[in-house]
């Protein structure tokens, strides 16, 4: 149980980072941390007590494997988060080019 709670704590660290940090890059890092927390949670959902890696090979019996499906889901989620992160970093670099700063309190022209 404590592992799940730690996972939740990691997620909250990510959210805190997104909400409180002013630096654009730190916000992106926050998004990445939160994404990792969710991926970790998915992998934890798959865990069986004393299970082994779900690899099917000719010389082993299928006994007490952990659930393989969430691991495939984690891979997909990682690919998606890669795309999001790459796009965010690209936007951040362009923002730096235009505004000359990474501070979001100074990047605030849209209001109302």
């Amino acid at each position: 149980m404590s592992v799940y709670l730690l996972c939740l704590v990691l997620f909250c660290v990510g959210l805190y980072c997104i909400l409180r940090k002013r630096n654009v890059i730190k916000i992106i890092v926050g998004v990445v941390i939160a994404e990792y927390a969710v991926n970790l949670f998915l992998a934890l959902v798959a865990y069986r007590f004393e299970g082994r890696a779900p690899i099917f090979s000719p010389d082993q019996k299928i006994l007490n494997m952990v659930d393989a499906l969430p691991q495939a889901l984690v891979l997909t989620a990682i690919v998606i988060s890669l795309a999001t992160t790459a796009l965010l970093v690209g936007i951040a670099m362009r923002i730096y080019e235009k505004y000359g700063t990474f501070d979001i309190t100074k990047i605030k022209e849209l209001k109302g």
Partner: protein
Amino acid sequence: MSKEHESGMSVIVKTITRLTVGLIFLFGIYILVHGHVSPGGGFAGGVIIALSFVHLMLAYGKEVSFKKLPRAVVHFFESFGALMFLGIALLGFTSGYFFINFISKGQPFKLFSAGIIPLCNIAISLKVGAGLFAIFLALVLLKFEAEKRK
């Protein structure tokens, strides 16, 4: 010193890179073609293949890397991989279902088995490898542009 040593990192890095980059590339292909019998597959293989080119670019600078793999080729492979994957999925309609595994499955744990899965792995690795390298290129070139303007 030859011309290719003018940009990029030091000689040590370049020598090591020259020795290892081919191995990394081959390892990527190994992971890729054994995707259906062991852990790995299209995504992991594609990432390793892309990393070999990233490695080349970091050590030798962008000119050498572009000579090996021009940007147009990267973009071509990216779209081509996706279209190939879609094409394999669409060929399933010939057997009645979208995405059906229409090639004979063969024996388990052999290299030539599992029907369309190795083909899908190849398509995915093309897409992922080219895509990842294109992301890297886009970010690097953005930096170069910004530096040039200064």
